[in-house]
């Protein structure tokens, strides 16, 4: 199968195709996954480029890099005999509450179900 050239797909993604070109491209991409994926990639850019209230990127304050360089040496990779400095992970407490909520829900459902079965 011959494929559409990327320029033609780019025109369509930018909304610059004539109705006739749009129809032809549409007919092709219904049959051709590769061109469809390419068109989708181009549309992804156009969607993301449309005006938003977000404005331009924000320059990070200089102190961020300073903080990063201050902590680079925390890396123990260079001293082979040093024990890995793993930060102990606490088990998040919310899991316990999540579990409790699930138990309550199941228990509640069972009671409710029992009521329906034996009115």
């Amino acid at each position, binding site marked *: 199968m011959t494929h559409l050239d*990327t*320029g033609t797909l*780019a*025109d369509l*993604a*930018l*909304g*610059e195709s004539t109705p006739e070109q749009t129809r032809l491209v549409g007919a092709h991409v219904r049959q051709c996954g590769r061109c469809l994926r390419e068109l989708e*990639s*181009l549309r*992804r*850019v*156009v*969607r*993301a*480029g*449309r*005006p*938003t209230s*977000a404005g*331009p*990127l*924000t*320059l*990070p*304050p200089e*102190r*961020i*890099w300073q*903080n*990063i*360089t201050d*902590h*680079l040496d*925390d*890396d123990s*990779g*260079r001293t082979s005999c040093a024990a890995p400095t793993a930060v102990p992970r606490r088990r*998040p*407490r*919310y899991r316990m*509450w*999540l579990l*409790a*909520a*699930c138990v*309550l829900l199941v228990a509640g459902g069972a009671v409710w179900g029992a009521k329906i079965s034996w009115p």
Partner: protein
Amino acid sequence: MTALSDTCISVRASAAPTAGVPATAGLSGEQLPDDELAAGIVRGDEQCLAAAYHRWGSLIYSLATRALGDPAEAEDVTQQVFLGAWRGRHTYRAERAALPAWLVGIAKKKIADALSARTRRRYLADAMITAVAVPTPPALADQIIDQVLVEHELARLPASQREVLRLAFYEDLTHIQIAERTGLALGTVKSHARRGLIRLRHKLDAVPLDQ
């Protein structure tokens, strides 16, 4: 400081002699392709990390700022992303992700962690009283990532392509209107728009959203 690679030493030598400042390494690092920068980081070359920060620091910081809406938390996340990349550099696999995609992937995790922590703080008190389950925070919207990526890459396009695409995107002008506004020939506008868009597309393709 860890051993510097030949690549980054030579690059560094050509830069202004203010070592340690990202702009310094960044000026030189701008010349290095992404994959060489990645290889330098994996080898433990701090100058390559500095160059990567110079190239993608504002991208990651903007991503975090927009996702979290809090500059202080965004600062913290940005710092965690680059330190996380540095400490996890041995796990980087070039064949699995380009360097910016890897950094964005780390940023997504750190942002999710920050949102989870925030949600936990907010709901924990309620949960203790009513046994309400803590809701899972929403994943970082793909749209935010794409917007930041496009903004980042637009700034790196050749000026002519950038100008045409900005008018097409931000002012929603047609090619004909852009030609009238800029005085460029219609064919030139079309060719700048196509080339610019295709280039952005390749940059975004390198950061798949489903990673």
